[in-house]
Structures are given as structure tokens and as C-alpha cells.
């Protein structure tokens, strides 16, 4: 009885899980199929919600896929929002246990708590989107300044105009166009490249694409709500081509500059659907940092993740990451590897557990691996 009540709660009140780029294995090669933003991340379209309910997530009731699709909207089975409006609210929390090899440190982290509003015309040629969310005070903030840091921020707000299916203009505050967008925002290829969940930028994104390719030019001014000295202005280019069925290759280029530093990055990536439910994502990049007051750093980053469906709603993950801050000096090369399980018991609910082993090579003193356990809950209305 309790299980049925809990199941009913999630079925009624909780919504689509965050999009994983590994869903290419189902034949959905373009991020635009499920996201309002053409390169992924952010609020999910009605189609994306229905897909989550009927293909990706498990079933814990006897409902048919048709019924699940009909109740996949923000209001669930209660009703449908008017066509010009889309709403989404989501929370992602993580129980992190780090230092398993010695004295474990345990803590709960509110990773994401946000709400989104999308106003659009029925054909989605015009839309305005805003996402406001909670962001914890960075750990690096001095204690005296912590109370002055706002924890409510805008994650994205932009207007979009798509004169045709193949062309779109997006003006405002959004994720920088570069590489694979994924929920693994603490991965080196996102966190060490300053493309993290709170690193959005103001600018103009021009997207063009068909079913077999995507391309984007993103002209950026930095985050205008930040101090001008830390804003990064410049541009990025993104391209991805389908070279075979469920197999896309892409490349990204970024050049930004500011008064504190300049940055240039280049990456190639691949998204390969091995079969339905099984995919491999990989991204390999070079990053060149030119700090204003210290020597240039030239490093690299690598990310590979296999996602394998065990049964509907349950996936086995294996993640391999590598990061080198600078090739020129004898510094560390970091490797982080581990298995994981992703479980989508019903649409609107995502449970994920990852084990990570972090190993540093290239240092004078060699330490034991650092073991961490990450347990996430993601609820998305």
C-alpha cells in the first residue's frame, strides 16, 4: 500500500528526468527533439516529457504508454497547460561521501533547485524562457563575505526566434555553446573548463541544423551581472554531423578574453548509439589559459561515458575522465573513473549512484586513490 501511494505521488507530481546526451541510442540524435535550447540543457519540451514517460523511464503501474504520455505534462493527469505556456520545476540533491579510503566525509549538497517559465507561440517560432534557481555560496568565498552572496540566481533567460526549422536566433543569458552538454557538471570537462552549471553567459546564439547536423555560432559578452573585470567576451563555434545512423561526430572552438585572463579551447566529441539503450559519449579537448599575471597554461581534458540499458528505466554507467592543467610544467594528471547506476523508476524521478576513484599521476609524492560515493536524487515537475 505504501509503495503504491509513493508511486502514485511520483506519477502525479513529479516530471521528466534531465536529458542525457546518451539518448542518441534511441535514435533521438538532436538535442532539439527534447529541449527548448537547440544544444541541450534547460527546460524540456512537451515532446521530451512524453518521450521520457514512454521510452526512457520505467513503469511501476499498469498504465499504458498512451496514458503516460498524456499525463507527462507539468500538471500531470490533472490537466494541460495552455499551449503558449510551459513550466518546469526541478530539484537535484546529492549525498556525497568522500574519502572512503580513510576518514569518510559525508554531506548533503543541494545541487540544483530551480523553476522555469517558457512562453511561446504554438509553433514555437517565438519563445521567451527564464530559469531562476538556487546556487549555494561557493566554498571558496571568504566567511566575512558569505552573507552578502546571493543564493538566488538566473540560470538562463533568453528570447528566441526560429524563422524556419533549420535556423534559429537566441538572445540572452544561456549556456555557452561548446562540446557535449550533460548533467555531469562536476566532470572535469565541464568544471575545469568553466562550462559548469553556473557559468552561463549573455550573448547571441545563432543555430542552424537539420536532422543530420547541427551548427552554432555563439557571440558572448560574459555574465553581465558579474563584475566587469571577470567577464569573458568572445565567441564559440559548435558543429556536429551525423556520420552514420545514431552516430554523430562534433567539434567546438572557443576564444574569450577578459581583463583577468584569456582562454582558448578546442574539442572534438562523439556520440555513438551502439544499439537501443546503449551509447558511448566521448569528448577530448585542449584548453589554453592566458592569465594576466602568470604564465600561460596549456592543458587537456577527456571524458568518456558508456550508458547501457539494463531494463527500461535502469542504466549501467561507466565514466572515465582525465584532466591535465598544464603540459609545460611537471604537474599532475588527474584520472577519475567509476561505475554508476542510473534509475528512472517513473517519469519525473531520477535516482543515480556513482562510485568514483580519483588518481593523480606525475607528482613527486604518490598518494592513495581518493574514493567517493555520490548518490543523487532528481525530481523534476
Amino acid at each position, binding site marked *: 500500500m505504501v509503495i503504491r501511494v509513493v508511486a502514485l505521488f511520483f506519477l502525479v507530481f513529479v516530471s521528466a528526468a534531465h536529458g542525457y546526451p546518451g539518448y542518441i541510442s534511441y535514435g533521438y540524435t538532436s538535442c532539439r527533439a527534447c529541449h527548448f535550447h537547440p544544444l541541450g540543457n534547460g527546460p524540456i519540451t512537451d515532446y521530451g516529457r512524453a518521450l521520457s514517460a514512454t521510452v526512457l523511464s520505467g513503469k511501476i503501474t499498469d498504465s499504458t504508454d498512451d496514458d503516460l504520455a498524456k499525463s507527462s505534462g507539468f500538471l500531470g493527469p490533472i490537466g494541460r497547460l495552455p499551449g503558449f505556456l510551459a513550466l518546469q520545476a526541478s530539484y537535484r540533491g546529492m549525498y556525497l561521501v568522500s574519502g572512503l*579510503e580513510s576518514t569518510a566525509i559525508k554531506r548533503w549538497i543541494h545541487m540544483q533547485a530551480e523553476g522555469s517559465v517558457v512562453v511561446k507561440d504554438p509553433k514555437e517560432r517565438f519563445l521567451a524562457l527564464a530559469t531562476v534557481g538556487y546556487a549555494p555560496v561557493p566554498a571558496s568565498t571568504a566567511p566575512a563575505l558569505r552573507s552578502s552572496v546571493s543564493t538566488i540566481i538566473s540560470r538562463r533567460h533568453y528570447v528566441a526566434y526560429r524563422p524556419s526549422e533549420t535556423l534559429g536566433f537566441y538572445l540572452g543569458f544561456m549556456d555557452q555553446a561548446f562540446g557535449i552538454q550533460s548533467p555531469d557538471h562536476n566532470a572535469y570537462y565541464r568544471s575545469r573548463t568553466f562550462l559548469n552549471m553556473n557559468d552561463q553567459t549573455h550573448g547571441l546564439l545563432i543555430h542552424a541544423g537539420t536532422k543530420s547536423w547541427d551548427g552554432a555560432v555563439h557571440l558572448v559578452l560574459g555574465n553581465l551581472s558579474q563584475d566587469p573585470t571577470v567577464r569573458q567576451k568572445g565567441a564559440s563555434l559548435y558543429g556536429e554531423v551525423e556520420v552514420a545512423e545514431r*552516430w554523430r561526430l562534433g567539434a567546438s572552438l572557443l576564444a574569450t578574453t577578459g581583463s583577468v585572463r584569456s582562454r582558448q579551447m578546442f574539442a572534438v566529441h562523439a556520440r*555513438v*548509439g*551502439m*544499439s*537501443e*539503450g*546503449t*551509447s*558511448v559519449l566521448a569528448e577530448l579537448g585542449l584548453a589554453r589559459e592566458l592569465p594576466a599575471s602568470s604564465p600561460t597554461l596549456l592543458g587537456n581534458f577527456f571524458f*568518456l561515458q*558508456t550508458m*547501457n*540499458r*539494463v531494463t527500461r528505466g535502469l542504466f*549501467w554507467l*561507466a565514466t*572515465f575522465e582525465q584532466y591535465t592543467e598544464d603540459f609545460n610544467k*611537471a604537474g599532475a594528471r588527474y*584520472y577519475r*573513473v*567509476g*561505475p554508476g547506476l542510473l534509475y528512472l523508476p517513473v517519469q519525473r524521478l531520477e535516482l543515480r549512484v556513482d562510485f568514483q*576513484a580519483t*588518481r*593523480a*599521476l*606525475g*607528482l*613527486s*609524492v*604518490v*598518494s*592513495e*586513490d581518493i*574514493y567517493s560515493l555520490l548518490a543523487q536524487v532528481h525530481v523534476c515537475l
Partner: protein
Amino acid sequence: MFVSRLLPALLILATAAWAKDSREAFRAGVGILSWQDSLSLTGPTNEVNALVSSTLGISLGGGYHRELNPIYHLDIELGLVLAQCDAGLPGPLPNQLLYSARNVSAYGGLGSLGLHVAIADAWTLGPSLLVLYKSTAWPQPGAGYTLNAEGPVGLGLVVDARAVRGEWFVDTKVGFFRSVSRFFWSLGLGYSG
């Protein structure tokens, strides 16, 4: 203990597999792999200091794949390993190193025996038993110190996940080598003929 129990079970299954009329394939692959070893440094007064070494290498080899039935698959792999190792131990004084060696060359061989379950058409998952031989020429420490390494052969147990697309496959192994406190991983790309 767990490894020593699993080995006979896998060998029995491997023997049984030959009696079946089942599909088979030969495979070739290349990959990167990494693990840690335990070392010890004995000092002038016979004090023993524990330290670890980290190894990163590439493997090149081949394997034999046999489908015992539509669900259970047997995989035997053999490979040549070329690697580089780091080891270093700080001393009691600031900026003092009792021992430090970086990018020390190592070579060896890796064998694995795995019983995997076909979860879907394109991927298998299951345990594999590893046997790894490694030879490392560690530089000698300073006068009065002796470096002691573990034996050249070690056993490991990993979870092996293999995603297949046509003749190509991506193979990931994560698990333990020598002890449950030593993590082993490998990432490979292979071709099945």
C-alpha cells in the same frame, strides 16, 4: 579469498563451454589501463615505510569469445602491457622526499577470464578475473634505504562491460587488483573478427 573461489568456477564453466555447439569469435584490441601497487621502503634503522605506486599503461592484445548460450558469454583475453609508474614518499622534514621516482618504465602481460551476461543485443556485463604480470626497474633509493616491491604477479577482479556496434566494441573494466583497497580500471577499443 573471493578471487580464489571464483577462479575454479570460471574454469569449470570454460571447460563446459567447449562441449557446447556455440558461436565463437576472435577479437583484437587496444586500451589504456591503470592500477596502484604497494611498496615499502626500509630505512637505515630497519624502520619500514609504506608507499604506493601508480601505474598507467597501454595494452595490446587479443581474445577469444564464445557464447555458451544466448545469455552467458565467455571471454578470454591476453595482452602485452607497456606502462609508466610513479612512486614517492615524503620525509619527516618539509620538502623532504624519502623516495621519489617518476615515469619509470614497466612492461608485462595481462590475462583475463570472464563470464558475461548478454543484457541486450549490444552489450554484456559480468565479472572477469585478471592475472597481471609486471616488471618494473625501480631506481634504488638513497644510501641506507632499500625499496621492496610486491611480487610481479597479481590477481584482480573486475566488472567488465562491453558495448558492441557491428564488429567494433568498447570495453570498460573497473574493479580491484591485489586487494579490495586497490582500484583497477581499463578502457579499450576492440574489433571482433
